[in-house]
């Protein structure tokens, strides 16, 4: 299935990992820490986000610390798909590794909070049902598609382990 539809939570540029996953909550379990996801700028996200909603931001999402707790708290809350204009590299890799689909789209400024969007990630098309608009999204590079299709890095490693043992 390459079609995802959901309600939007919308943020702007430079949402860094200190915002997504503040350090002070990192000594707690991921389930506990998840309640404080995005809390420096949005106290409602951690408690009101519903699985299936889509996380949308603009430029340079996930800059700063390499903390994997950032994608992990998002995943804990049920985030499966993120759309942004661009990503910081470690965050991008971390999302793919934990099995969150990261989509690049240059037009996320046209998407607003609570819009309903549908993403066809194989074709690279995002439809904004609330506004009756369509945007182009970047197609996912093959080596990343392979990881995403397997469900992240862990299943990939399990696969590697089997092959390795067979040798």
């Amino acid at each position: 299935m390459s079609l995802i539809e959901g309600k939007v939570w919308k943020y702007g540029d430079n949402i860094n990992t200190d915002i997504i996953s503040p350090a002070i909550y990192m000594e707690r379990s991921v389930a506990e820490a998840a309640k404080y996801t995005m809390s420096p700028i949005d106290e409602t996200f951690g408690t009101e986000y519903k699985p299936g909603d889509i996380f949308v931001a603009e430029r340079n999402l996930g800059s700063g610390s390499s903390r994997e707790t950032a994608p992990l708290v998002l995943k804990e809350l049920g985030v499966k798909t993120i759309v942004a204009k661009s990503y910081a590299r470690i965050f991008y890799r971390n999302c793919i590794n934990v099995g969150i689909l990261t989509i690049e789209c240059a037009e996320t400024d046209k998407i607003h909070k609570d819009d309903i969007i549908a993403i066809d990630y194989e074709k690279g098309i995002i439809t904004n049902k609330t506004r009756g608009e369509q945007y182009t999204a970047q197609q996912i590079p093959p080596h990343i598609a392979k990881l995403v299709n397997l469900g992240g890095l862990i299943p990939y490693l399990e696969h590697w382990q089997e092959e390795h043992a067979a040798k």
Partner: protein
Amino acid sequence: MGMTMSEKIVARSAGLTQVEAGQIVMAKVDKAMMDDLLGPRVEIAEQMERMGAKIWDVNKVVIISDHYTPPANAAQADIVKFTREWAKEKGVENYYEYIGPCHQIMIEKGHALPGEVIVGTDSHSCSYGAVGSFATGIGSTEMLGVLMMGEIWLKVPETIRVEWSGKLNAGVMAKDISLRTIKQIGHAGATYQTVEYVGSGISELPMDERICIANMAVEMGAKAGLMEYDEETAAYLRSIGVEKEFTRISSDPDARYSSVLQFDASALVPQIACPHEVDNVFDVTDVKSKIDQAYVGSCTGGRYTDLKMAAQILKGHKVASGVRLLVSPASSSVYERCLREGILGDLAAAGAIILPATCGACLGLHSGTIGEGEVCISSTNRNFIGRMGSKKSFVYLGSPAAAAASAITGQITDPREFL
């Protein structure tokens, strides 16, 4: 076609003679570094256990408990304990704790060497570029992959060449070079790229100042920040007991860059990054704010040259009343040297509070977090919203010299006024 430094290192680790920016390769990892905050306890230990997986080469793994040391509460203490026990159980002999931020320890203990490919679970792993390692931060699950396979896929990065000519004037430090470069490139301007620092403005600097510059490459989104191996690198490595001679790796004259930027170190004045982004940078003379706290410390601004400079500025002065100056040396060996040379005494005499070597306040975990409405000038590397404590606090980044001068006046101050 010629290759850049980073292309040369990546090519060697991938077993290739030639690579080009954009190409995806499997690189063999020379060292893998984990800290307490994002190391074994996040996914790694649990998944390894579940999969019955083994570390590919324990001698190439270094584990450092630094963020939660000394622990502020039982939860932090449990994390450090877990990290220590996990290292022991896995037979990782390169385990350190309580002696300072991981990046300083990696370099000081000779674990980061020229020409190596190094990955760490902390984003400032790019610091090791100062000694010529191609080093980058990765997430915990990715580290699990490295621990099992000993390799990682990398997209060969393009390189931005940053040339600093001239020589810094008194009162201007490596931190100012860092901030000025970040101002120009922007906080995402080097995403997926290597930033290569060359020129007399860099080669004239001692190793501990160079580390401050490589450390902050990630603040432009860079994968690595690299410097050439030279006499200073060789002398530094000898000083920490690394006897081996290394090949001098530099970029070929016909290497391809995504851009080349030129700066003049002799024209640089102290720089300040204002809240809440690292590229929100101004000349110190254009920044006005009162401060509640000044912080000199971290893997960015807590080394010997930093503390020495702060002490020089503070000599004969006192920290302003109502302001606190906290000093955390970047490692216990920096602590010990500064103690021996009287630097810590001078700092304490001026009213500074000397803390152990720790990450602590740098990321708002303990030992100097700030409250609502409070302002801190800090020699660390990030001024993100809430980074040092309350989400309603304000962090200005500057050199240790600027932090010391500001501690004297109680407001952001040009350190050159105290020279």
